[in-house]
């Protein structure tokens, strides 16, 4: 979706290093979802953010929503091989009621 831009498109990170993925919307966000996808598999739900300034963490993954910038970031601390995959952000815009529009995805590779 051109209304939702993800960056970077791909990144390679050394095991143990941190990484950040950004998702920027051109429309007002009602909710922002983060998913992870491995090749040939479905999407694994990570987190959902719905209020400006909201921040959620699960294990080594933290997601934030900046309402002013209409932007969300996903941060992984001390990356591990299990963090490799494609990360997708999905946006629920104010008029969509659960119809998610997705960014193009960020491919993450974790090297030894």
């Amino acid at each position: 979706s051109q209304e939702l831009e993800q960056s970077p498109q791909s990144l390679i990170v050394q095991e143990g290093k941190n990484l950040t993925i950004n998702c920027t919307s051109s429309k007002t966000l009602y909710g922002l979802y983060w998913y992870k996808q491995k090749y040939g598999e479905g999407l694994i739900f990570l987190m959902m953010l719905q209020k400006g300034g909201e921040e959620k963490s699960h294990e080594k993954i933290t997601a934030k929503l900046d309402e002013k910038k209409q932007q969300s970031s996903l941060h992984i601390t001390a990356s591990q091989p299990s963090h490799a995959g494609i990360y997708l952000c999905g946006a629920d815009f104010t008029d969509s009621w659960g119809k998610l529009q997705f960014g193009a995805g960020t491919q993450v590779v974790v090297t030894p």
Partner: protein
Amino acid sequence: GAGVSQSPSNKVTEKGKDVELRCDPISGHTALYWYRQRLGQGLEFLIYFQGNSAPDKSGLPSDRFSAERTGESVSTLTIQRTQQEDSAVYLCASSSYSGLYEQYFGPGTRLTVT
């Protein structure tokens, strides 16, 4: 069930044939969504069902595509007269309700039209 299930996992069909894809949502989830992921492209919304309300079909790409849902259970996505551009992974998701609720995705059906 434990999660959203989809069948078949893979489907190869000849151009012009009809196909049916099945989705079993998580028990108790009233909202069900279909998405499509074509190679090299992002996920596209196709259709969603919420309870007994009329489905939102705004994402269906053509009238060859249709979907049905029986109550709050199984859904079937039908593609008639398949074309090569229909080749994609078709993903189904369900949530407790429509709107700001976590959507849980199935493993998808990989459709290849030859």
